[in-house]
């Protein structure tokens, strides 16, 4: 049945390089998540409270991010902007594509979170003498954070998985590096099998860490 000899040695030899590339994957995913949370928060607040061109812009962003493939978005930042003479490095392509996507998905989560907090709470805190900023940062945001904590964790996992698309725009993160080695040695199956294991471990670590953090954050 097996007419194929598995060669694991070349994979093991380049394992340090793969792990280094995994760090790059994590780095780009974490950066995209931080930017995505900030932008997603702004988009959610705009969609809840504003009218006019800003609302239109925010809605377009969210709907485009949610209704087109992530790979299409990466290609758009990669090749589409080339039409305007804007050529980004692979790192920037992946970072911007992931940020665009994460911000769109997170904005919807945040919007749901904000809508779950009744208006009366804001009015109550205002009548207790808090100003609008204090009411938001001390009353609303902590509760919203509790609601969106789980979706944020999921989005973080998605960001790591999505960063694998970097391989198609020439970014040498975990997948890109794997493809590079695989095409040099033709040990495609072995390399990608090891990479799959690395991704699995990364995802499990993220989920485990978030569960640990949740028990500390949400004790009350």
């Amino acid at each position, binding site marked *: *049945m*097996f*007419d*194929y000899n598995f060669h694991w040695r070349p994979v093991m030899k380049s394992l340090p390089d793969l792990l280094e590339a995994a760090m790059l994957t994590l780095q780009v995913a974490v950066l995209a998540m931080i930017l995505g949370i900030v932008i997603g928060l702004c988009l959610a607040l705009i969609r809840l409270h504003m009218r006019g061109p800003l609302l239109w812009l925010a809605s377009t962003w969210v*709907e*485009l991010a*949610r*209704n*087109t*493939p*992530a*790979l*299409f978005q990466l*290609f*758009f930042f990669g*090749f*589409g*902007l*080339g*039409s*305007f003479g804007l050529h980004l490095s692979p790192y920037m392509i992946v970072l911007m594509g992931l940020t665009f996507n994460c911000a769109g998905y997170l904005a919807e989560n945040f919007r749901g979170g904000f809508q779950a907090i009744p208006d009366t709470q804001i009015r109550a805190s205002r009548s207790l003498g808090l100003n609008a900023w204090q009411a938001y940062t001390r009353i609303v945001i902590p509760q919203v954070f509790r609601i969106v904590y789980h979706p944020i964790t999921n989005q973080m*996992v998605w960001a790591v*998985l*999505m960063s*694998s*698309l970097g*391989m*198609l725009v020439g970014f040498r993160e975990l*997948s890109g590096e794997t493809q590079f080695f695989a095409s040099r040695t033709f040990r*495609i*199956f072995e390399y*990608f*099998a090891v*990479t*799959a294991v690395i*991704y*699995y471990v990364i*995802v*499990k670590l993220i989920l485990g860490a978030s569960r640990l953090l949740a028990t500390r954050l949400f004790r009350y």
Partner: protein
Amino acid sequence: MEPTISFFSGFAPKDLLFLGEAALRTMWISILSISIGTVLGVVFGWILYEGKWAAALTVAPILDVFRSVPLIIQLVLFYNFAPIVGLNLDPFASGVVILTIYTAALVANVARGGIEAVEPPMRRAARSLGMSYWQDLRYVVLPIGGRAVFPAWVGVALGVMKDSALVSVLGYVELLKASQILITRTQEPFLILSIAGAFYFALSYPISRYAASLERKWAQ
């Protein structure tokens, strides 16, 4: 004499036809894998619900792997694994197999949630009215639980439709691959990517809006 051969030619109306055909291929591979994957996923979901610890030790971790490894890695891995065990699959077949399993892994959780959404007292009532176990599943759990998780299922299905763009790594000419081919020829990335994006958007946006409105209607 003027040079008569040019490597690049502009975007012609017949290229729209080429893109349209590729869009049909995207829809075909999506519909195929979503329908088979959903059936499998519902079965897995039922096993997860009924199987208790036996399923938690066998089916659950396997499905978990398909959710924790990037789809693109799964595709490359399977495409290169199939010949090792003596299967010769073309890119389309490999894509369908992986997309189906991926759909099933995602739908399994949704389906389990649907079964859990039906309260035990209701099911006991159905049984005490003389329904058999299967009648209870078919006439009580399916309509009520199905309704509860229908929006989530639409989300999964649209996600798979968008993720079918990744089958292009295996060389299957679906929408995104077709647009890449055209970009190479016409050197007009912005125009062509916009058209491809509009196709995806036109497929995904109406369905997601419809699901959201159904959810609102059923919530009342």
